[in-house]
């Protein structure tokens, strides 16, 4: 356990020393500032409310605006989950640092788990700050709180862990560049698949929905976002099924279970592939 924590601690320290944390914090702060400004301009100044019906519509606008913020924040976290961890195995192997580390009484799975924990801790903080920040801004301006926040945030947390784990998995065998192409490519594939499924459902094309589901099976990251957005949008938006984020076709709980199993299997596969890798 001591060795795993030493690796996790070193991973965090690397991110701090290489200014990853500082830059992520700056980008995050800029994001929240911009979002707060937009929120203020768009929905922060409620027009005079004449009746309950217009108030309800107003509320849908606020909810949509919050979902937009969460969407962008989640996109940022997901991209950073891939970028932050893309070089950590291949880079250490190329520099020779890995050979020195693994000549110590440290099993390879321990090194993998240590790095995973370190990145997971950092990304969780970033995610909490961005998603929490977006929610706080929405609440501050309008008093609106999304429903099922815990479930929604847990799903987005799972998406971040999924992307981190998959990036580490390919890092056990691929060079940094190849890993970047594959991990970002899969992420983009899931993203595209999600929209195909949405639009397919809106326009009643079951074939397109199936293509989207297959894309989610290949990489379930976007499906987790859509389930989370579905959880966190007001019932009226769900009922209308017109939201741009999670309206028409909602991933089932089975897909969520699939994503959990996918992440666990990706980690196990990463351990196996790393274990047999010649350094």
């Amino acid at each position, binding site marked *: 356990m*001591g*060795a795993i924590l*030493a*690796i996790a601690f*070193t991973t965090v*320290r*690397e991110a701090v*020393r*290489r200014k990853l944390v500082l830059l992520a914090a700056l980008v995050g702060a800029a994001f929240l500032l911009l979002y707060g400004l937009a929120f203020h301009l768009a929905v922060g100044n409620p027009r005079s409310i004449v009746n309950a019906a217009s108030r309800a519509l107003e509320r849908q606008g606020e909810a949509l605006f919050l979902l937009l913020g969460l969407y962008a924040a989640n996109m940022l976290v997901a991209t950073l989950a891939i970028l932050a961890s893309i070089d950590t195995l291949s880079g250490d192997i190329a*520099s*020779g*640092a890995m*050979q*020195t*580390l*693994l*000549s*110590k*009484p*440290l*099993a390879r799975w321990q090194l993998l788990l240590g790095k995973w924990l370190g990145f997971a801790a950092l990304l969780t903080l970033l995610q909490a700050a961005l998603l929490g920040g977006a929610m706080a801004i929405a609440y501050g301006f309008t008093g609106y709180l999304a429903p099922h926040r815990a479930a929604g945030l847990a799903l987005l947390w799972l998406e971040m862990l999924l992307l981190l784990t998959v990036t580490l998995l390919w890092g056990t065998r691929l060079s940094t560049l190849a890993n970047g192409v594959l991990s970002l490519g899969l992420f983009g594939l899931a993203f595209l698949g999600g929209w195909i499924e949405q639009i397919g459902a809106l326009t009643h094309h079951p074939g397109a929905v199936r293509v989207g589901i297959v894309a989610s099976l290949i990489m379930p990251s976007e499906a987790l976002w859509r389930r989370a957005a579905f959880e966190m949008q007001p019932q009226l938006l769900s009922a209308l099924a017109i939201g741009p984020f999670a309206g028409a076709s909602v991933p089932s709980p089975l897909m969520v279970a699939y994503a959990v199993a996918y992440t666990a299997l990706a980690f196990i596969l990463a351990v196996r592939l790393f274990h*047999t890798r*010649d*350094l």
Partner: protein
Amino acid sequence: MPALAIETSGLRKVYGRKLALADLSLEVRAGEAFGLLGPNGAGKSTCLKLLLGLARPTAGHGRLLGRPLGDIPTRRRVGFLPEHFHFQDWLSGPEVLRLHGRLFGLAPDLLRRRVPELLERVGLGAQGAKPLREYSKGMQQRLGLAQALVNQPELIFLDEPTSGLDPLGRLLVREVIQEQRQRGAAVFLNSHLLGEVEVSCDRVAFVKDGCLLETRDLRAAAAPSLRLRLRARGVPADFWRRALPRGRADQLPGDAWALELAAEDAIPELLRALLAAGAQVYELTPLSLSLEEIFLRVIGRDGGDA
């Protein structure tokens, strides 16, 4: 402690279609300094990787300190300085040593004492506190050496330990090897620098093209024969066959020969015979059989590039 620090039998490593190590069987005794010599690409580094469990042998097996290769707890008793390494350059020297110490499971108290001692020992001292990105190549190498000693190992692997070091640094490596041996540690030295191996090692193995060619004891009572260098002109072509039926003469460039005689008594007699045969002798110098000559003889002049 087992009598053998390392024993391997038929170790073989194939990367894809490239044969890196054909068949390596060797034994290193506990407390011994053992050198692995060979031209670049002979399989020395592959051998280290297999011994340290960084790569898996395609065939064969071995034991380190009595335990099978790849055994993780055994690594507590092993130190390793890799040939090409680059520590995390955003750490300082003491941080690198503390990290590696923690991975060895050493207590923080112990590390607080040992880390400054080690930095001092490898000549880094106070300037070691800089971040590694400000280290010179030589300082990196010194830190690597300290890192290999942080757990006071019973067996130390040094892969080209003097690369990037100035003469003082090379002297340091030599002294450190001596100290570690006095402490009772076995040292496994990979090098293509013959002088380094000659000074530090008890035994040496020659590898070429992934094969172990020969193992030689460097500490055995002086070489069995006497070596001389002769520079002379006008030596008849068949002279050596007649004058040295039991010795050996290898022609060197510039009218010179390397001679091997059975005993010192044969020198005056040889000189008389040379003069009688009409040769003009310019130089006759006794030599000890240097490792370089052994190396060239065992490996061949074409080295590993053939």
